[in-house]
C-alpha cells in the first residue's frame, strides 16, 4: 500500500479527523436528533408535568424537599426506565434499518466511537429531560415552601435542597444506566418489533424481575442476610432506590437500618452501563 497523501478526486486537501472530532460529530448529530424529535419532547414535557403534579398533590411545594423525594421516588422508579428506553431503543436500530450503519462503516469511525457518541448524545438529552423536570419541582418547593417544621418535624433539621440535588443526580445516573441497556437493545436487534419486544422484556426485568429474583434468593437461602445489601446492587432499580434512601432519607433522619451499600450500588449502576455499551459495541462491530 502506498503512502500518498489522503487527497484525490476534487483535489481538496483535508486533515484526517481526530478520534475526538469523530466522537463529537456523532454526539452533535444525536443531540440534534433528540432536540428535533417531537415524540421525545412530548415525553419530556409529560415527565415534567407528572413530577410537578406529584409534588403538588403530595403538598411537596409546602412540605419541603425530603417529603417530595419520598413522594417522587416510587413513580420515578417506573417512569425513568420508560423514558430512558424511549430515548434509546431505536438509537442505533434506526441507522441500521436505513442502511446508514453500512454507509458509516465506509468512514473512519469505529464501532466504539459510534456507540459511545450515540450514547453520549442521547444521554445529554435524557439527563436534561430528567434534570429539568426535577429542577422545576425544586424551584417550586423553594418558592412555595412553608416552615418545614410544621409538616415534617422529625426531619426538619436536615431538609435541604442539597438532598434534592443528590436525588436529581442519582435519578439521572439511574436513567443513564437504563439508557445504556436501551442502546444495547437497539444495537442487537434488526427490526422495530424485536426492539419493542426486547424493551418490554428489559423493563419487566428491571422493574420487577431482578427484585423478585433477589427475594427468591433470600427466601431460598441462596442470598444470605449479610450479602443482601450487596446483592441489591446487582439490580439497577434496587441500586437506585438504595442510593436515594441512603443518601437522602436516612441521612436526613439520622437514624434507621442500612438499606443499601452506596458504593456497591454505584458500582452496580456503572457495571450495567459499561456492560450494556460493550454489548452495543460488539453488536455494531460484528
Amino acid at each position, binding site marked *: 500500500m502506498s*503512502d500518498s497523501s489522503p487527497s*484525490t478526486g*476534487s483535489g481538496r486537501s483535508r486533515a484526517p479527523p481526530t478520534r475526538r472530532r469523530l466522537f463529537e460529530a456523532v454526539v452533535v448529530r444525536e443531540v440534534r436528533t433528540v432536540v428535533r424529535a417531537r415524540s421525545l419532547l412530548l415525553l419530556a414535557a409529560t415527565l415534567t408535568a407528572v413530577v410537578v403534579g406529584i409534588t403538588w398533590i403530595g403538598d411537596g411545594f409546602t412540605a419541603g424537599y425530603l417529603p417530595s423525594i419520598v413522594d417522587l421516588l416510587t413513580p420515578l422508579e417506573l417512569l425513568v426506565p420508560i423514558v430512558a428506553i424511549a430515548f434509546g431503543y431505536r438509537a442505533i436500530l434506526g441507522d441500521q434499518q436505513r442502511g446508514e450503519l453500512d454507509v*458509516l462503516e465506509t468512514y473512519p469511525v469505529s464501532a466504539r466511537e459510534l456507540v459511545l457518541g450515540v450514547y453520549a448524545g442521547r444521554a445529554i438529552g435524557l439527563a436534561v429531560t430528567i434534570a429539568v423536570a426535577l429542577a422545576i419541582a425544586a424551584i417550586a418547593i423553594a418558592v412555595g415552601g412553608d416552615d418545614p417544621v410544621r409538616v415534617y418535624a422529625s426531619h426538619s433539621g436536615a431538609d435541604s435542597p442539597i438532598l434534592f440535588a443528590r436525588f436529581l443526580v442519582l435519578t439521572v445516573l439511574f436513567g443513564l444506566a437504563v439508557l445504556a441497556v436501551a442502546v444495547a437493545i437497539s444495537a442487537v436487534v434488526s427490526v422495530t418489533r424485536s426492539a419493542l419486544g426486547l424493551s418490554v422484556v428489559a423493563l419487566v426485568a428491571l422493574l420487577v424481575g431482578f427484585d423478585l429474583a433477589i427475594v427468591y434468593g433470600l427466601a431460598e437461602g441462596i442470598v444470605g442476610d449479610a450479602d443482601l445489601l450487596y446483592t441489591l446492587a446487582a439490580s439497577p432499580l434496587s441500586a437506585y432506590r438504595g442510593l436515594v434512601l441512603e443518601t437522602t432519607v436516612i441521612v436526613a433522619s439520622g437514624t434507621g437500618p442500612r438499606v443499601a451499600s452506596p458504593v456497591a450500588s454505584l458500582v452496580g449502576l456503572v457495571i450495567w452501563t459499561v456492560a450494556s455499551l460493550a454489548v452495543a459495541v460488539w453488536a455494531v462491530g460484528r
Partner: protein
Amino acid sequence: MSERQTPPATEPILHAQNVDREYGSISVLEGVTLPIRADAVTALIGPNGSGKTTLLRVLAGLLEPTGGSVTYRGPDATRRIGYLPQQPAFRPGFTVRETLRFYGSLVGDDDEAPIEHLERVGLADAADRPVDALSGGMTRLVGIAQATIGDPPVVVLDEPASGLDPGMSTHVFEIATELAGTGTAVVLSSHDLELLERHAHEVAILDDGAIVDRGDPVDVRNRLELDSLRAVYEEAISGDTRTVRVQGVTT
C-alpha cells in the same frame, strides 16, 4: 468528458480473488475473481438475484467473503471506499446540507464541502430541504453525493440510476465517468444496458453467483459477434430471463 475513453490497463486498485459468499447453506457467490481498475467505470450486470449487491457489498468491505479475498492496493486515504446502498435513506429531521456536513465531518471536510458535492449531482438547490421531503430519485442523488465524500479512491454504487428519469440517469453515468477521469475507480451495478454500453470501461456479467464473462464492452460484443450489450447479456445469461431465479431454490 461524458462518454468513456478506455484508459490504459493498470494494476487493479481493488482485487476480488476467488470470492465465495454463503448465507448458511445458500451459496450466493462462487469463485468470483474481479480486478477493479482505477481510472475506470466497472459495471456489474446480471439478472435479479444473481449476486450483484452481495458482490458490491463484499467489494465495499461490508461483507466478509466466506472464501477468497478482496485486496485494496490504492493510496492510503481517509476514506478508502465510498458506498451508495441500493436503497439509500437518511436520518429524518435533518436537511440535505446538514446530512452531508455530518458525513463530511467524519473525513475532515469543511462546512462548504457539501455544496460542492451537491453541485456535482445537480442538487445544490435542494441543500436546505429536509431529507425526508426528498423524492426517491433526489434521495439517490444525495446518496451519490454522500458516496463521494472524502474523495475515496474507490466508489461503489449499487444501482445509482434506479428510479431516476432518463436525463438524470444519463447525468449519473456522466458523473461516474468524470470520477473515473479523476482517478477514481467506480464500480456500479445497473440494468440500463444502453447507458452502460456508452459509459462503462469494463463490464462483468454475473449469473447465478459467478462471473460468466468480463471485459471491455466493445471487446466482449465483438468477441461474441453481437451488436449490443443487451444481446451479449441475453446470450450470457442461462435460463429464462423472464423468471427470477432464486439461488438455492431454482434449478
